[in-house]
């Protein structure tokens, strides 16, 4: 499982717009680089990111090779109810990396 770093508030007021930051350790190999002996290094990136809140999608992204290594995303969500924020990063291979964090809304 890849290393991930999530930053989200543990508590928020109902209706408050909160900022979430998500980072994952990944080289985001572009498929444009030449390796040894002139062979191309095959593309291997995270191409999809989805954030769900209480099971509902609240933010998502399609990523291309021009996104930096160790992709960093910061976005907003409206705090509505206490629950789980879940983050899923999908590799070119189909492999999915998941992280979760809880939030208490009052």
């Amino acid at each position, binding site marked *: 499982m890849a290393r991930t770093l999530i930053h989200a508030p543990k508590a928020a007021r109902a209706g408050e*717009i*909160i900022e979430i930051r998500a980072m994952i350790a990944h080289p985001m190999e*572009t498929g*444009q680089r030449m390796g040894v002996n002139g062979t191309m290094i095959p593309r291997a990136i995270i191409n999809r990111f989805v954030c769900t*809140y209480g099971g*509902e*999608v*609240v*933010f*998502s*992204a*399609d*990523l*291309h*090779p*021009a*996104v*930096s*290594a160790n*992709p*960093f*995303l*910061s*976005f*907003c*969500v*409206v705090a*509505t109810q206490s629950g789980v924020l879940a983050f899923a990063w999908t590799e070119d291979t189909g492999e999915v990396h998941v992280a979760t964090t809880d939030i208490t809304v009052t």
Partner: protein
Amino acid sequence: MVEIPALRRRDVLAGAVAHLVVLALPLRAMARPDLQAAVRLFTGGADLREGRVHLDIAPLVENGNAVPLTVDVDSAMRPEDHVRRIGIFNEKNPLADVAIFQFYPKSGRARVSTRIRLATSQQVVAVAEMSDGTYWGVARGVVVTLAACIEGL
């Protein structure tokens, strides 16, 4: 460093302004077929208007491997009027697409930050798709310098 002569600050600013004008016009005037095609794929060929989209990216960056940017779109993000998607595109990387972000009823605010790769000095374009089917965009010129003493010389 070597590409700088053609990109004096005045030219870059002029280029950015020119792009703003271009964005308000049909897309055929844009710099490169790839960029043009990528934006058209995003808009479905609809008109692209200038405004509402704020693209915060440094005009001069010291390494193109991780260029921070923030896109913020003027929108109340209400059910009847919200941002559906934001697309980021570039002019001179091998591929014109950078990222496409989707927003939902609970997104709250149409703002996103990330870090992108820029192979060389070029224009970066952000386009927002609104719930009423209109598209709004902005272009920014970025000068990319190189780090000193790199590997694999």
